[in-house]
């Protein structure tokens, strides 16, 4: 990787901080992301209404739901899986008004699932505050067969769709919520560089 060089398409994640100006807040967290939600409430309890949706079992099987129940005043909803959280999110979005601030914490895959879910309601991902927790694992989009291989921790991975060996690039697509994967041994089949875990 070249030094001193930003890859434009690669999203930048920060730590969650409350927006002071808002009419309401919506916090979405998954797995270890629950810690980021707890940290938000350490900062303060906002004056405006807050809704928290938390999915217990992300990749790493940690559960902050008991602590969240003690800290979040009301409007905490706990789900077993991220998919359930996303279904609930889509059902509450139509009732939301301008001035809503959205905060997401979880794996990169979760962050972009949320971004995709709220986009049809007129929320641009630029206005979502995002914290990457859990893991650096990447979703990888195969440019050959268009399948997305989830939670990839290595530099090279076998595509879940076409089984080609894909090199995981830094080029990220916000629409797909995934990094581009390009066949690595196209020129000389079978000749693979070392496969290493670099996105733990």
């Amino acid at each position, binding site marked *: 990787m070249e030094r001193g060089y930003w890859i434009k398409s690669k999203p930048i994640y920060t730590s969650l901080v409350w927006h002071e100006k808002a009419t309401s807040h919506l916090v979405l967290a998954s797995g270890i992301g629950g810690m980021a939600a707890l940290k938000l409430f350490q900062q303060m309890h906002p004056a405006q209404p807050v809704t928290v949706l938390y999915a217990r079992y992300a990749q790493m099987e940690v559960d902050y739901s008991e602590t969240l129940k003690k800290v979040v005043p009301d409007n905490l909803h706990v789900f077993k899986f991220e998919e359930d959280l996303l279904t609930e999110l889509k059902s509450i979005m139509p009732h939301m008004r*301008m001035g809503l601030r959205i905060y997401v914490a979880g794996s990169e895959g979760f962050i972009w699932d949320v971004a995709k879910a709220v986009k049809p309601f007129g929320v641009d991902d*630029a206005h979502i505050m995002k914290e990457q927790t859990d893991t650096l694992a990447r979703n990888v989009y195969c440019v050959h067969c268009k399948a997305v291989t989830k939670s990839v921790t290595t530099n090279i991975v076998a595509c879940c769709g076409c089984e080609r060996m894909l090199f995981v690039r830094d080029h990220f697509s916000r629409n797909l919520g995934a990094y581009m994967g390009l066949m690595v041994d196209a020129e000389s089949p079978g000749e693979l560089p070392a496969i290493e875990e670099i996105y733990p």
Partner: protein
Amino acid sequence: MNMIDVRVAAIEQVTPLIKHFKFVKEDGSKLPPFSGGSHIVVALDAEGRTYRNPYSLMGSPTETDAYHISVRRQENSRGGSAYMHENISVGMTLKITHPVNLFTLAKMAHKHVLIAGGIGITPFMSQIEDLNRLGAEYELHYAFRSYKQAAFVEELQKACGNKLHCYSDSDGKRLDMDALLSNQPLGTHVYVCGPSPMVVGVLETAKNLGWPDSNVHNEQFLAPPVGESFKVQLAKSNLEVQVPAEMSMLEAIEAAGVQPEYLCRGGVCGRCELSVLESDGGLEHNDHFLTESEKASCKKIMPCVSRTKGKRLVLDL
């Protein structure tokens, strides 16, 4: 800038202070297409100088047989609007620029809230045509002093029906910005055009309620303020230009035969930006374009509205 020759086809006194002008091409051909919210600059040769004033295009962007603008006679006009009111008559020819849109509707918006104050209604006159054609969801909030001074209320009622909400000072009816902006569905964009306190009011309210900047749009062309007379030296053109008190720097530079770029002539678009090489006094920045730190650095100036507090300025032009 290449200009279009037009003939004044009709003039209508809409209210005691507002006149509506209709322009057509001399040869009867169509004028260039435009989108809702666009403006043109009208060039007027008067009293030995050229006024160039921006006006919003009204009417339907799909009908380009004619352009329509409305001009309010400004109380302390430096001449442009008064000249339009007193000296322009049907049949005269004028030069106008191609339309430019610095106040476009957001294509991705789920809903549009339009807020107009007084003559600030004009850019919305073309936008509502676009919105109606697209079947978009919108509301138009129009505030004015009194029904007698308010232009186009009947046309708007016809075009917008119950999407139009009028607020007349004389009836004591006020537009409650906070109430209006605190209960809009997600994906709403707000647009404001009107007197400065109104624009500032909308911007502040939206900000305080947590609206993202990208969902808030305003059009607020400033009239170039008058000031002290000073000299500008144009380094590249090797010219020295005297800027009289009642002329803008841009106008004076144009009068000297140099043609800097511009779009809005009102301190908002940024197109006319020039680099300041030297100045013997502080700059008087009147624009809404440069950031506070850029203004403080005194390295850039928008000649359409800004001046110097000193006697002499050297520009990289």
